[in-house]
């Protein structure tokens, strides 16, 4: 028997593979196709206070080994979620993480407070890659003090696991990791999508209605690994690695650089059972190489200490 589980602030995850916010709906869309109870956890689509229509089409563009999205956080809103989606999620035997998005610090607090009153939510993941309306739309997640403030405010409102989901679109993600650790986060998710764009050279227009969008998929896996590694050098809280994971091998790379668990995102679009297969594959690897507890792999990469993240001349 291989130990696959891990615990975050008292909540036990049966294995180290979650599905990423925005890539698995509210968990019920593909229940015929996937045994979701075999997942370590489900992160819901980001929830905001009011329902959001999302951006106009076109919202999706395929790129080399990846995709751009500009969904615009289309979601049903927290009240509808509680009424219509949560009852199903409550029946599942897996950890349910509510992901929260907002355009003001107060909205983050309001959504979380309302969710606190409900049964069936095991923890929160906070999407800070949202435009801060007060600051003219600059993302909260690129402002270290705002990110810290959101963390500290939400910490006072819940005793459940509080996971801060960091954006890669900053110079030093380690600064953000340290800030949210100090402000009381239980874990960080690394990374959200990378800003990117694509152009239709015949129409001479951006392919996405919003000009830029978020890049995800295998194209960004090397970037995500470097961000997780950078963060792991400076914080001791658990890191959930995200970015381009398609296979167990990919997930194991994240564990080795320091992730306690991973999330599978874009891969779900190609194979909705990708997350379950990644978990199975990690188990096989452990079996094959005599690893009794997957936790032994976390941060187990040996590396030449002569070289640091910052010193690799190109």
């Amino acid at each position: 028997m291989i130990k696959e589980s891990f615990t975050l602030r008292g909540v036990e995850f049966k294995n180290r593979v979650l599905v990423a916010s925005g890539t698995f709906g509210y968990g019920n869309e593909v229940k015929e196709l996937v045994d979701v109870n075999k997942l370590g956890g489900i992160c819901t689509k980001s929830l905001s206070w009011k329902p959001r229509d999302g951006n106009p089409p076109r919202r999706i563009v395929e790129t080399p080994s990846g995709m751009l999205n500009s969904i615009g956080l289309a979601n049903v809103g927290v009240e509808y979620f509680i009424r219509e989606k949560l009852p199903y999620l409550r029946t599942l035997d897996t950890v349910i993480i509510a992901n929260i998005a907002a355009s003001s610090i107060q909205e983050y607090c309001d959504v979380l407070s309302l969710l606190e009153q409900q049964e069936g939510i095991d923890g929160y993941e906070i999407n800070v890659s949202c435009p801060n309306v007060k600051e003219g739309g600059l993302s909260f997640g690129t402002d270290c003090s705002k990110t810290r403030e959101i963390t500290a405010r939400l910490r006072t409102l819940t005793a459940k696991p509080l996971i801060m989901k960091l954006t890669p679109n900053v110079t030093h993600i380690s600064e953000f990791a340290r800030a949210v650790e100090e402000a009381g986060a239980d874990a960080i998710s690394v990374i959200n999508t990378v800003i990117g764009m694509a152009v239709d050279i015949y129409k001479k227009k951006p392919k996405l209605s919003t000009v830029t969008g978020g890049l995800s998929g295998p194209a960004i896996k090397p970037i995500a690994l470097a961000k997780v590694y950078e963060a792991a050098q400076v914080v001791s809280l658990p890191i959930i690695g995200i970015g381009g994971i398609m296979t167990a091998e990919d997930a194991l790379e994240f564990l080795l650089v320091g992730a306690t668990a991973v999330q599978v995102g874009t891969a779900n679009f190609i194979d909705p059972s990708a997350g379950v297969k990644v978990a199975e594959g990690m188990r096989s690897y452990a079996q094959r190489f005599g690893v009794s507890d997957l936790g032994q792999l976390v941060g187990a990469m040996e590396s030449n200490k002569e070289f640091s993240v910052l010193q690799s001349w190109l």
Partner: protein
Amino acid sequence: MILQHVAPVVSNTLIAEGIFLLTVEAKDIARSVRPGQFVNVRSTDGSLPFLRRPFSVSNTRGDLIDLMFNVVGQGTRMMASRRIGDTLDVLGPLGKPFGFAGNFKTAIMVGGGLGVAPFPILTRQLEEEKKSLLTLLGARSAKHIVAKDLQNTQIATDDGSAGFHGTVVALLESSLQSKALADPKIFGCGPTPMLKALSEFAQRSGIECELSLEGDMACGVGLCQGCPVETSHGSRKYALVCVEGPTFNCHDIILR
């Protein structure tokens, strides 16, 4: 019930310029799919492209499903190169089938380009339900016409190389002017500009009309919110083409 098959290729034939008919064995999909539904396709050997590609189920025979496609890019090039014995990873049936509501007697199928794809299976069901049929197909030129397993077909080409010289919607207008049809209902499929013209015509003429939309999809199963179409009423601004469509009543959506 959505199913995932590693489907063996049974045949793959060039049936018109740049157009292939690919038949794969996918029993459970073949047995349950209804006209207007689609499958989401990827290669099983890891070759490009990255995301799945949506294709209408064109017809079924026993355990087999037919896909009819135009070679336009990486995904359809991969599909065109599939030979007997290769496999294709197919997810489906997906989406909402064409709506048969209303007491129509005559079904007018209007297809632009590869919009003809779902018509063979649709024809079969309409025949079972004893409807009169009229099929109007628009194509760039005579070389791009595929009219297999259809009934009472008229052609329009952009270059006039076959049939009516003009768009298929213009052909429809002129057909209906020359001869009124008893209790008609339109089933349209094709590129968005054509569907927009068709929808406007249908609403102007007060004819019921179901449309099957194309559009960019990432997942095809409602996970990504990537496939919005604007709704014309109700509290939500957008509906999702992959799960609430690809077929819509023309009154329910706004095409741009």
